[in-house]
């Protein structure tokens, strides 16, 4: 265990944006005020997180604990290297998006509300990786979930509401799954700490398994894991671009982060068990069960990545395409996490690859969404069929998008290459680990998905930037990107180039240390750190994906009409949402049927009672007539209750008498 030192930094990191939120709410319509506070909020958070590095680099973990505040046990922050990395990229990208938003939001209404909730969401999102126990994590997770709803429905169109409803209710459902899972877990393990739990060594009963399933479901909903991804391609595109950048780039990572924490940390034996010569049977059992769970999660990841890529190929709206691409990329991450759990103590490659991909994907997906924002800001159009030739009109954006796209398809020397290669290693290792033949296919699906990624990004680049614009767009003159947008996107693009050209630096200084937080074989961790990323076989694998993707794109555009296709309605995302909605309504009808029946029954019964009993009593009113005082019971007419009381009393006395003496009289 690393040395733990008390520090206020985690608290400061979440409180600064909270203060910004309150301040912006106080004077929403004052432009300079809210801009200043937004910048203060994101800069302050970044600074607070960055200052943590001095402790973490010494191998210390930061803790902050207040008992009985907000959660029934402790309000507890504990920052290890893994949490630190996530918090760092969150606050860094948030700052870039804030700068971008200062300009972008000029063409939207309700700016004050947007920036206020932008800050509140930051507080939640940065709090998730800093949290030290599950309940504190849940607190920030819920803040993030609810606050980001306001960002999703920002435009207040019908589409936004329907997407927002799906987002909100699935989010609440996910939160409740987490709460239940944590409740069950706490009851059985007696602890909520995000570390290996000794109680698990005594064997997993069905409660622990239920808790794990519920928690993974809760996090999976936020991560956009198939089949609970349905909210994602609808909610991410409707939000304003800076918000979609963060939703897609960072908030879904909170889900992935949670999944990794659950399976690779909480449900994993303690490192102290691994120093012994022979493993205790409890530890062996736990490793085996985690391995089984990991195998299932690998397939969820594979399904997610493939399905996401498939959806992305048929999208024509830039933001929807990017959102589907997010599903696909989160699939890579979940797969990596699954491999990490599947290989257990030897899973350094899986966990490391997933972490690295979280890091990379946050950068390129945020950049792409910001670029989409710039495109819609300047052209007012998001449909790639109506756009074209933007490389001439928006050269800056074109370069930024090119850098990000080369990263996401895994071109060597751009930032996605390293993580994709590591994940590819991970899946190959997973096949070699137990020789489960299905995982051999998984590797093929992996390559195919990479080809699909190339295909839909070629589509995006070709249609939007390279081809000549279709008729009416050709002559249209558009302004150049405003400076703040350039700063926002440029910062991220430059970071990506730096990350891409120095993969070993990132591996050793940012991603590598995160593995210290997990229970992993130190030899394999070292292997992971010393890996040569530029082996010929890896380059061939990437080249294969690139060529395959390019060929696929060529074939699809040449011989099919798939890119200009009006997507059949049963493939459309709205259709899925609506179908789920209809099913829910139907199911709801079935569930409520008995309740409604019972309600009606009681209504009828109470009416019957009222008519029969009460009117009967009224008829025996001893002061009959039109002005029967009985009809308006009030305090001056206490007789009625007296009648009831007397009836009740006499009944009771009879019973009491019977019970007291009757039993003996009748010889009981």
């Amino acid at each position, binding site marked *: 265990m690393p040395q733990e030192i008390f520090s206020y930094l985690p608290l400061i990191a979440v409180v600064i944006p909270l203060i910004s939120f309150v301040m912006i709410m106080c004077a929403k319509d004052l432009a300079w005020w809210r801009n200043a506070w937004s910048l203060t909020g994101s800069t302050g958070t970044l600074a607070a997180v960055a200052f943590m590095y001095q402790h973490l680099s010494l191998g210390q973990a930061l803790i902050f604990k207040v008992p009985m505040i907000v959660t*029934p046990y402790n309000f507890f922050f504990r920052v290890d290297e893994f949490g630190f990395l996530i918090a760092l990229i969150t606050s860094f990208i948030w700052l870039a998006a804030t700068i971008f938003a200062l300009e972008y939001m000029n063409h939207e209404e309700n700016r004050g509300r947007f920036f206020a909730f932008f800050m509140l969401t930051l507080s939640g999102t940065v709090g998730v990786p800093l949290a030290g126990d599950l309940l504190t994590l849940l607190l920030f997770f819920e803040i993030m979930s609810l606050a980001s709803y306001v960002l999703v429905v920002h435009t207040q169109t019908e589409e936004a509401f329907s997407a927002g409803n799906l987002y909100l209710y699935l989010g609440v459902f996910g939160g409740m799954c987490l*709460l239940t899972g944590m409740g069950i877990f706490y009851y059985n393990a007696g602890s909520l700490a995000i570390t290996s739990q000794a109680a698990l060594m005594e064997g997993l009963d069905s409660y622990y398994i239920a808790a794990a399933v519920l928690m993974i479901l809760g996090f999976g909903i936020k991560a956009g894991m198939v089949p609970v991804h349905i909210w994602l391609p609808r909610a991410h595109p409707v939000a304003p671009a800076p918000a979609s950048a963060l939703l897609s780039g960072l908030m879904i990572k909170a889900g992935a982060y949670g999944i990794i924490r659950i399976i690779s940390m909480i449900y994993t034996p303690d490192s102290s068990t691994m120093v012994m010569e022979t493993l205790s049977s409890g530890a062996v059992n736990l490793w085996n069960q985690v391995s089984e769970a990991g195998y299932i999660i690998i397939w969820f990841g594979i399904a997610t990545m493939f399905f996401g890529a498939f959806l992305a190929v048929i999208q024509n709206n830039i933001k929807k395409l990017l959102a589907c691409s997010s599903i696909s990329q989160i699939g890579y991450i979940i797969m990596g996490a699954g491999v990490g759990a599947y290989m257990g103590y030897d899973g350094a490659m899986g966990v490391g690859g997933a972490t690295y991909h979280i890091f990379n994907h946050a950068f390129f997906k945020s950049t792409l969404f910001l670029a989409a924002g710039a495109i819609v800001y300047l052209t007012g159009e998001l449909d790639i069929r109506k756009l074209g030739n933007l490389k001439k009109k928006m050269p800056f954006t074109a370069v930024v998008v090119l850098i990000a796209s080369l990263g996401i398809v895994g071109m060597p020397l751009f930032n996605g290459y390293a993580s994709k290669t590591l994940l590819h290693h991970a899946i190959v290792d997973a096949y070699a680990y137990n020789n489960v033949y299905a995982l051999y296919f998984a590797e093929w699906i992996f390559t195919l998905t990479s080809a699909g990624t190339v295909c839909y990004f070629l589509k995006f680049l070709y249609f939007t930037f390279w081809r000549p614009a279709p008729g009416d767009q050709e002559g249209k003159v558009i302004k150049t990107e405003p400076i703040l947008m350039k700063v926002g996107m440029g910062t991220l693009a430059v970071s990506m180039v730096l990350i891409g050209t120095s993969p070993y630096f990132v591996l050793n200084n940012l991603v590598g240390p995160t593995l210290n937080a997990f229970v992993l074989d130190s030899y394999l961790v070292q292997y992971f750190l010393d890996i040569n990323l530029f082996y010929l076989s890896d380059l061939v694998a990437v080249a294969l994906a690139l060529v395959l993707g390019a060929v696929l794109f060529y074939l699809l555009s040449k011989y099919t009409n798939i890119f200009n296709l009006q997507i059949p309605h049963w493939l459309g995302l709205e259709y899925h949402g609506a179908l789920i909605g209809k099913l829910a309504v139907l199911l709801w009808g079935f569930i409520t049927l008995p309740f*409604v029946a019972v309600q009606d029954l009681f209504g009828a019964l109470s009416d019957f*009672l009222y008519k029969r009993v009460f009117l009967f009593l009224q008829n025996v009113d001893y002061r009959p007539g039109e002005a029967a005082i009985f009809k308006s019971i009030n305090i001056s007419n*206490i007789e009625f209750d007296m009648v*009831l009381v007397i009836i009740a009393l006499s009944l009771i006395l009879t019973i009491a008498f019977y019970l007291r003496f009757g039993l003996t009289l009748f010889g009981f």
Partner: protein
Amino acid sequence: MDRIVYLPLFLIVFPFFGALLSSLIPEGKDRIRNPFVVSISLISAVATVFVLYYFYHFGSWELLIHQIAPGLEIKLRMEPFAALFAGVAGILWFFAVLYSTGYMAHEHNRRRYYIFYLLSLSMTMGIAFSANLLTLYLFYEFLTIFTYPLVIHEGNKEAREAGIKYIIYSFLGAGLILTGLVLTYGNMGTLEFAQGGIVDLSTGTLRMWQIAFLCFILGFGVKAAIMPLHAWLPSAMAAPTPVSALLHAVAVVKSGIFGIVRVMYSVFGITALVGLQLGFFVAALVSVTILTASIIAMQQDVLKRRLAYSTISQLGYITLGAGLFNMIGLTGGLLHIINHAILKITLFFCAGAIITVTGKKKISELNGLGKQMPLTMIAFTIAAIGMIGIPPINGFISKWYLIQGSLEAGAPIFVAVLIGSALLNAAYFLPIVIAAFFKEGQFKKEKGPEAPLSMLIPILVLVIGCLVVGIGLELTVPYLHSIAEYLFFSGGN
């Protein structure tokens, strides 16, 4: 200390005579009556705080008022559970009276209204401090009688029918309680509340004690709105909003809950309760209540009725917590007494403010209300999120303890009930919030305060209270835990 022991009696007598005095003020003289009733309730609230303060320093004490016969006494006692109920009622009553001065400004019959409002406070305090079932029963009956004029306040047909329903249901319940009371007294010769209970199951047949227990549960269950007996509550929403807020979210319904918990833990005691083998029955009945009420709430369009069904559902949480028969569940139930009281009174106050300012009673008419009444709707939002049970608002903590309690009782099915109900809560509260803040409507932004200050201040103070209680859990949880420990005492018998 000598005089302090009379404070519980003072808390009963003072509002009573205050009410009688306020009847001397003529109908039209609001400028005299409003300060008068507010100061009466303020003094009561301060006295409540004093009682609590002395209680936590000097422990419990008793006050014998009158002895009818051996074992039949009118007696008051200050003890942990009494402190909880008296504290909640006494403090919230002050806010409700303050709120009433704003809400009732345009209503008729204000004199009658305030007389009975204060009389109800007096009776609620009596319920809280009662030391035995007889005293509790006495004040409980009078509470019904004194709240009746408040329910029929409007005087129209709807209100009169609601009043009749209320009276019939209440007295049916009272009859059942009386039955149980006589059965208990007949067998045990005492009605005293005691730690660990007074009932010894061996004095009668099990069936007889089961009947007595069910008489109590169903009798008090009328006011606690357990499902087949709940019908009076939604129709009693015909009353003015402060009445609905206080009586139908806090005092009257909670007096039913108070009775149930008292009967369970102070009369029967945990040993006898387990012996009765009725725990699962009660918990199942309450679970049905929780889910059914939530489902019915979704179909309501009148805001106050939706809140009423939500109340029925949330009261089920408390009874469920008590019916799980373990410490953690009971702690959760007791926590929910406080948390639900603050949350629901805030929601009702918001509903009342909306009715006063805009005249809208239906949820479908509230689109865009956030523009005109931002503060009220923010308060509503916070309370609604608390109701769902999302941290950091206070509803979360009771839900957490109830989940732990359900698991402790070995019945994860109740976890499913609680979570299902939380989801339903989200499904019927969040659309109101969304409609108010994001949908387009005809409401315009106004200058000046959105609602009369006498209404806005209680709303804001209470919603800040929700946040404070939700964030600073050390303010409530340890005390509630010790109360649960006190009630759960199993050394008796």
